[in-house]
């Protein structure tokens, strides 16, 4: 019985991670924007 319960909990966890794929990609998008902005101004710094 305890084994069965553990399996059920694991299932719920896996399902939840799948649900937040949009969240993960959104945060990655924010991170990418930060990196690209930083790189753009860094290139400006190098060019001067």
């Amino acid at each position, binding site marked *: 019985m305890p084994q069965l319960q553990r399996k059920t909990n694991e299932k719920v966890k896996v399902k939840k991670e799948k649900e937040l794929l*949009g969240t993960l990609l959104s945060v990655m998008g924010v991170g990418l924007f930060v990196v690209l902005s930083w790189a753009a*101004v860094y290139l400006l710094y190098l060019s001067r």
Partner: protein
Amino acid sequence: MIDKRDAKLSLGFLSVSFIALFIGAIAGLLQTLVRSGTIELPLHIGYYQLLTAHGVLLALIFTTFFIVGFLYAGISKTMGALYDVPRRTAWLGFAMMTFGTILATIFILLNKATVLYTFYAPLQASPWFYVALVHVVVGSWLCAFSMWNQYYIWKRRTKNKLSPLFSYMAVMTMALWFIATLGVAATVILQFIPWSIGWVDKIDILISRTLFWYFGHPLVYFWLLPAYMCWYVVIPKIIGGKIFSDALARLSFVLFLLFSIPVGFHHQLLEPGISHSWKFFQVVLTFMVIVPSLMTAFSMFAVFETAGRKKGAKGLFGWFKVLPWKDVRFFAPMMGMLIFVPAGAGGIINASHQLNQVIHNTLWVTGHFHLTVASTVALTFFGIAYWLVPYLSGRTLTPQMNKLGIIQTIMWTVGMAFMSGAMHLVGLFGAPRRTAYTTYSDHPQAMDWVPYQAAMAIGGTILFIAILLLMYIIGYLAFKAPKGEMDFPVGEVEEEAAATPVILENWKLWVGICAALILIAYTIPFWHMIEHGPPGSTGYKFW
């Protein structure tokens, strides 16, 4: 509805904040019109006088009064009516802060305190201006003590129960404010007041700027944390979702306390007299703030996605479409959140030593803080005011006012896109900040800046119209809207979320680590400043 006495207290703070917002906005409009060469100021009013009024009234007064008013309302909502001693202390704090605000405004209007928002030495104001600022800060400390007292009594009476998330965040916000303002209090009381009275001839510029920026950067987080409180606690309820994780929210606030204070040197990267190694150390700590910032971004996206999926949203980003875009209580803070993406990216650029040399003292920096405090924070505060003002006044947010609020938010966003966008671009071309209109004898490079300055004036004008609209909506919601019961939205935590570890409420631990980080980051460089102190400067009054 919260206790009527607490509603009155909160409304008192909000009233002063909106009056300050209106006066500061007039100064802002005039600044953009002068800077673009559109008008010349009449009656011997100075550009730098306006700049001081705009900065002090908006960055210090509007924000602080709004924040304290919002926190009191939320504390009363989540921990119950204020106890007698905290409420009396709060009114005393309000009286001191309001007195200080009136005194400071009078001296700015008399042109006796034209020292810009940063009141950097060697610019010198009347001693009364500095005395006024002391009143604002000490009054806010009384408010901090009062909130901590309320929290302490509540914890004792509930036998150390986990505090409500909103109240925990309020306590943390005021802890950050208190620790940060110790720096500005020290420079004002020990340096500026004796120097402006004439008790001493000279002031140590480096120490005064270091103490200012010890305060100046966490000040940004003092503005941001209440906006985050709205995002973490209020927004989930408004969109019909749940708080992603109570523990994550509290941990992010702990990290903001730890990493937003010992980082002032990133505002002084081009300041002589501080070694590169200490600047580097504080830049590393500055970059640590990215962690709780991305935690907040993750948490908010997760709230949106989870709520959207429950409503049946399909596809990778289908949940984005089902958000309540027509509800101004969501729309205004959401625009603030979206604007925080470029605002945060700009902040990381500013704090990077080499990149700082590209943008230092240019209009880029002005554009940057108009995205952070004047957009992310201001839009979130407007979104809060649209439901908090009628809630506290026993009135309702009507569909018509909701629609006007959405128009106001769009106008603010468009106006800021023009103004801040132009500031960012022309800053990259080298246009300086804190400068009245000049063509530098028609120098070709300065002439290239003129179209951007015109765009700033267009943006400034749109923003001012948005402020007029905001004033109308707030006035209507406070005095004219139909009587009724509004909801103070406080979200509940997701059932699946992990339990909150007790250690997150161990104040001795977090304040202790915070103090240790401050001592590590500042003790040796500060000692160097004293040991190799420059000769100091007499005061200057240019305008």
